């Protein structure tokens, strides 16, 4: 009766207007249907939790993955992701940079923002134009980068 979650969302090409800024809509239910979906990929729970929380307060629908493989699962499940904010340095079989490369190849319409504690990201030439937000970042800086990428 209340399909608040869009069950069919196979189109990645649609560039819906980002609902960022203070774009909280005044709807009942969970309101996932008209919000821009952002995927946050970060293994450290406290960092992931606060970044995701901040982006939700900014009006986005935020999905969370604790590593790159989980992020691949979310893509495979057909979620309408428009931007991925991922840590570069994560344990596991796939780094954040490899995830960024995968997204550039398979979902070229999806924007990617990397974050790293290192001043210079190793392998930055192959990641090409993928922007990097240096850790520690302020939530204001995160929101600004995300909004700018989404309107590009």
């Amino acid at each position, binding site marked *: 009766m209340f399909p608040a979650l869009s*069950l069919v969302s196979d189109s990645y090409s649609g560039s819906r207007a980002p609902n960022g800024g203070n774009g909280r809509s005044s709807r009942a239910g969970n309101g996932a249907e008209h919000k821009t979906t952002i995927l946050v990929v970060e293994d450290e729970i406290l960092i992931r939790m606060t970044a995701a929380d901040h982006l939700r307060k900014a009006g986005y629908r935020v*999905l969370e993955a604790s590593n790159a493989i989980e992020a691949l699962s979310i893509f495979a*499940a057909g979620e309408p992701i428009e931007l991925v904010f991922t840590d570069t340095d994560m344990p596991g079989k796939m780094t954040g940079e490899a995830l960024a490369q995968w997204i550039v190849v398979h979902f070229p319409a999806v924007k990617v923002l990397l974050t790293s504690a290192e001043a210079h990201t190793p392998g930055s030439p192959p990641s090409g134009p993928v922007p990097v937000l240096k850790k520690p970042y302020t939530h204001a800086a995160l929101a600004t980068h995300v909004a700018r990428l989404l309107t590009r």
Partner: protein
Amino acid sequence: MTEATRKSSATIMVLEPDILARMAISEYLRGCGFKVVEGVRAEDALTVLRSGMAIDVVLAEVRMAGELDGLELAKQIRDGYPGTDIILTVGVGNAADRAAKLCNEGPLKKPFHPRELVTRIQLLRERRRTASTSSE
């Protein structure tokens, strides 16, 4: 639990190793008006609690990877964090059912029936399966 979840600002932590189930259950509970923190393993709950953040309810799958399982986590939470309730679940259907019960006590109307939550998780899994076989 009723008292904990009746607060308009109640925070629920969802501990679930399966990413698609975690995502769907967490969004469902957000739709009920709760603040939801997502964790993968039992240690995540302790990390968040030790940080000083108040968690009203931890909804945890019994079987989790890592050094602690759900039962041991429940013991540690009962001993160390009396303000936090813990609900242990076995399997996704059970977790969806308990999430729906929490939702009944939550500040907002249930966004959809718990059966649809299970259906959604199944659909997400089916899509993932299809995507991974077709890309091989």
